[in-house]
């Protein structure tokens, strides 16, 4: 059954691939506590002391890493869906 046309499925395909690649890499960078991504962490404005900050930061890093990887998995599903739609559309036009 056709949910979207050829252009929509191609678009979905490209964004899914891009999403998978980039989210996996971003998850990896979050996992290794990369400093460049420090401003993207869900942290509070102020902490009691330095240790509280460090524990919060480490937790935030791993949490974001898992979020990214889960989103990457959802993009895998989207990829499969788009691919199936794309092949169905190209078979219809071939016929």
């Amino acid at each position: 059954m056709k949910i979207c046309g050829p252009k929509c499925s191609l678009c979905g395909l490209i964004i899914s691939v891009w999403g998978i690649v980039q989210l996996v890499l971003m998850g990896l960078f979050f996992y290794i506590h990369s400093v460049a991504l420090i401003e993207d962490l869900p942290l509070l404005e102020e902490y009691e002391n330095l240790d509280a900050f460090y524990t919060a930061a480490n937790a935030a890093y791993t949490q974001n890493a898992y979020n990214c990887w889960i989103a990457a998995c959802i993009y895998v599903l989207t990829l499969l869906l788009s691919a199936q739609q794309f092949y169905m559309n190209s078979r219809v036009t071939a016929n």
Partner: protein
Amino acid sequence: MFIQPEAAYTSVSELGETGSVQFRDLNCNVNIFQRKFVTEVRRCDELERKIRYIETEIKKDGIALPDIQDDIPRAPNPREIIDLEAHLEKTESEMIELAQNEVNMKSNYLELTELRKVLENTQGFFSDQEVLNLDSSNRGAGVVDEATVQHRGRLGFVAGVINRERVFGFERMLWRISRGNVFLKRSDLDAPLNDPATGHPIYKTVFVAFFQGEQLKNRIKKVCTGFHASLYPCPSSHNEREEMVKNVRTRLEDLKLVLSQTEDHRSRVLATVSKNLPSWSIMVKKMKAIYHTLNLFNMDVTKKCLIGECWVPTKDLHIVQKALSDGSAAVGSTIPSFLNVIDTNEQPPTFNRTNKFTRGFQNLIDAYGIASYRECNPALYTCITFPFLFAVMFGDLGHGIILLLFGAWMVLSEKKLARIKNGGEIWNIFFGGRYIILLMGLFSCYTGLIYNDVFSKSMNIFGSNWINNYNTSTVLTNKHLQMPPNTSAVGVYPLGLDPIWQLADNKIIFLNSFKMKLSIIVGVLHMVFGVCMSVCNFVHFKKYSSIFLEFVPQILFLLLLFGYMVFMMFFKWFKYSPHATFQPETPGCAPSVLIMFINMMLFKNTKPFVGCNEFMFDSQEGLQKTFVVIGLICVPWMLLGKPLYIKFTRGRRVSHVKHNGELTGNMELAEGETPLPTGNEQAGGAHGHEEEPMSEVFIHQGIHTIEYVLSTISHTASYLRLWALSLAHAQLSEVLWNMVLSLGLKMPPYTGAIGLFVIFGAWCLFTLAILVMMEGLSAFLHTLRLHWVEFMSKFYEGLGYAFQPFSFKAIIDGEEEE
């Protein structure tokens, strides 16, 4: 060239296949209808008309025409032409006949269908008893037995079918002419019937009109004709009606069979024709092109051979001669055709050989202006400078990868994508520039690496070279800390910008200074390169005097002033260091390059800070003054040098012509018989340069000088757009990340992943639309402007016209686009 008339057709066909000659029209004062080969052109037109008619018929039936890509046929020889004509004639007449038959049959079918409907629908109008009385109306097509009717005094009737729109007018008219003595019963048909001529479905109504008397019947019949109602004989007795209905049904079936067989036959004919049609169409096009070209030839006085004139690239001369000999050989002619090279004063067309890679860049340059004949072609250098300047403005590794992938896809599947004929204007532009896009992506990846920018985040590949020397309490109690470079900067980051800058508050202040200086350096280099290109032009056209009179002052002016500014920038980068112990060498004492430049031009001085020196090195003051003085001398040198030289040398050269590289003076007649064409008038125009009055020369040179001097300043400043656009791109990228993607990353655990999924999709779309498409087009446009105005105005003339050879490939491709 001189061609034998018998071999003319084949020779021109060969030349068209090679596509290396541009013919000149020798018969421009002859009307199109009076030229020699007009009848042949008319024949071709007739053939084309037939082919077009068959094509429309094929398209109506929905049969696909095969696409010829690889095996393009050659122009047909006379025997083939006759075959083709016969074939096309036969097919066309068959098609017309079939169409006519079909129309006839369809109208028959319509009549029978209407008759059937009439018979079926009038059941309700008659009851069985009345039927017997109305027997009189049953004799043939509406012929009523007068005597019987009048004798009986009963009602007669006529039955028929009329368009539904006309029913009311019809009824009213009947009422009027019969003074109310006609009784009309009607019933609408539900299903529309197809009009045989147009094929449109029309709604109709069945009617039965009852009347008394012969006169009324005639009147009714006249009204029916007037309203285009079709009358049908309808028997009054039920049994006869049943029989008639059966009859009609069988006839309808037969007719349907015949119709479908006709249609099959038609499809078969069209299918067989459609296989050959594209190749025939191409052959006819080629034929027509050949005859048009032959019309450009002149007939020799002795009527023994055809004479034509053409432009041929020198390297292709042997190809042309081979084509001529092939043409003669194909016809079996013993007398060969041959080619003579003649010198001329006219400006030849400009021809730059390109391959699929360089064609895109050549198009960019040609859009500004086609190069004058044998001028230096900047397209070669544009292959590298264009993507480089684009990349300076677009520097982002992530976006560069996107461009690179797009360009690579188009290049790798170019054979398949080239077959797409109707992708639209925008697709054609993108596909035509696929190599440009590929290179732009590649260079953008490089500058992205140098600017250390991936979707506005930096990559820490080698480890940052800045260290934090403050102790914990200082860090914890201060919101902002400044890290002085003499203690915190350890070493130099190996490639590009240190990744820590992305997180610094003063990132933009630092990058501004760096990128602005970079832009000016690149700009001055580009402009110096442009001025140096003019040397190539002067050397080629043997205008050696211009090298001394124009090039030297121009390059001195540019280098001594703006080249010196570039030197100051580099010197400032090297001299001032935070590790210096001598205070005037610390960064705090570094003077502004712009202020120094302005002071240099105006011979002013500014007071430096306490403990600092005004100048960067000893004898800078003296050096600057010397440069400015020499630069000022260059201006009158440019202004007066060339005109005075022309004035002094004009007196010496009285009669001889040869001083301009484009003219080669003598014109030789090839055979002595044929008069060569209008080159004489044009030679006079080109010579006019000599007779230009001195005041014109001075004014001309004055304009050039003012333009050049002002342009050094304005164009140098114009190159600052390299900084401006790269700043805009970086900031847009950062805003997009912080305002869009960051929201998705700061979400609660596990469930936030779905939010991240949605927001990431939105971020992708925005990145593609704003940062890649919009910024990409913007940077492309600005790079193009930098090339056209800042670079090419230093040396480019661009007054040529393009070489458009007689090539079948170009003609067929051009027609397909239409």
